[in-house]
């Protein structure tokens, strides 16, 4: 086919792999760190004390109400180019020097973004915990902390699995904007291949196929996880398994 020159793809394979690897670890690190921070914040979010819940609410309101691209630009160009920060760079302060690094800024933006979405999911799941489970825990003499650790969190996190799988896939796709801050992720690699060969179909269709493949793998993994951890919530099948074996 004239409009799809395979040699453009095969010639740039190492570039695509490096980009894919960048996409994968950016997404994975953001998701994992976001998860670790989201769980305690979700508990704060459902707190009846508004001094605890209001700041978390303000955080999710901002990060879920604005595009991740603008958040990324705000952190990388906005913070990194302010004169005050540049003054801090001259003093050689290691923490503020991080804001010069596009990788760190992308990771920070992605983590803050996915953490906001994940924590609202978990907070929703905690609120929807059947009241009887909490009552049963209290009746067994558990303290609030023990009930949270043994009963509420395991139950809520399991029920949050289906929306979490959605968020993981959205994060993978959302990470494509990393190329806006000079990072060469999978989309960035495709853009480089495009501009070198002027071959938009080869570059972007191949990148799209790779994203699609990763999405399929993730969907499959989450299906396995749901089978493992949500088996007790599945609708009962008609006819028992033993009857079918006969």
């Amino acid at each position, binding site marked *: 086919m004239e409009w799809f020159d395979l040699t453009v793809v095969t010639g740039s394979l190492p570039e695509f792999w490096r980009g894919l690897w960048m996409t994968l670890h950016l997404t994975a690190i953001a998701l994992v760190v976001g998860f670790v921070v989201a769980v305690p914040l979700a508990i704060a979010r459902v707190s009846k004390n508004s001094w605890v819940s209001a700041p978390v609410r303000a955080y999710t309101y901002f990060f879920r109400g604005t595009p991740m691209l603008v958040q990324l630009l*705000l952190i990388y160009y906005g913070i990194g180019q302010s004169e005050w920060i540049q003054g801090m760079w001259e003093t050689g302060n290691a923490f503020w020097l991080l804001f010069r690094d596009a990788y760190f800024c992308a990771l920070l933006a992605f983590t803050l973004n996915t953490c906001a979405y994940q924590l609202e999911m978990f907070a929703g799941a905690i609120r929807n915990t059947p009241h009887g489970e909490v009552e049963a825990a209290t009746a067994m003499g558990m303290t609030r902390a023990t009930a949270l650790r043994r009963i509420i969190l395991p139950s809520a996190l399991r029920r949050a699995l289906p929306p979490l799988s959605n968020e993981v896939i959205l994060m*993978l796709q959302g990470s494509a904007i990393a190329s806006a801050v000079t990072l060469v992720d999978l989309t960035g690699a495709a853009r480089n291949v495009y501009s070198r060969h002027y071959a938009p179909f080869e570059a972007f269709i191949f990148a799209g196929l790779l994203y699609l493949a990763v999405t399929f793998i993730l969907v499959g993994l989450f299906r396995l996880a749901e089978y493992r951890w949500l088996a007790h919530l599945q609708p009962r099948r008609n006819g028992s398994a033993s009857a079918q074996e006969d």
Partner: protein
Amino acid sequence: MDALIEYSPSLLAGAWITLKVAILSLLLAISTGLIGAACKLSKIAPLRWWTAFYTTVARGVPDLVMMLLVFYGGQVLINQVSDYFEWEMIELNAFVAGVLTIGLIFGAYFTETFRGAFQAVPAGQMEAGRAYGMSSWQAFWRILFPQMLRYALPGIGNNWLVLLKSTAIVSMIGLSDMTWLADQAGRTTHQPFIFYLAVCALYLAMTSVSNALMQKLERRYNVGVREANV
């Protein structure tokens, strides 16, 4: 702060472009979604396969990659066609490419929303409409469609919020929406922070207004549904 005031007319013009992209994409996405849902529920198997293929690809590939493909790939296609017919150079407009991409991607999400909503209406409703002597078209518009909307509204609201935020990526193909204009203003004045913050505030205003409107609409379409009071 002075810089922000100086550039505010330009930012507001950008906000208007963002809104135009979002609303036109929404219209395209809703029409695509209705057609897609009809295909997914159709008895003709190839139609179902094609729609399944469409929704999988549209939701499995990042919107930015799709947009770059439509923008740069579309230009190559147009050039080949215009070379063939010996027309003058036609340039693909970033606005058109943006609306087409976002509209078609979210068409896939709306397909799923509408499919679920149509299936949520009990089949007896349509049968009852037909039993009263309505034509199937009348029964569809008077009975099935309004009830379907009730189930679809939360999904529509959600999709709209995601769509609105994903319009920011049109700045990456050079359309002068508010993100792009903030980027330019930030470069000239060396104060990017305040401009990006202003864009965030504008997006927050849009999402907050949308939320309020959605709640109103949901109340309107849920007239006649009594919620359980605990």
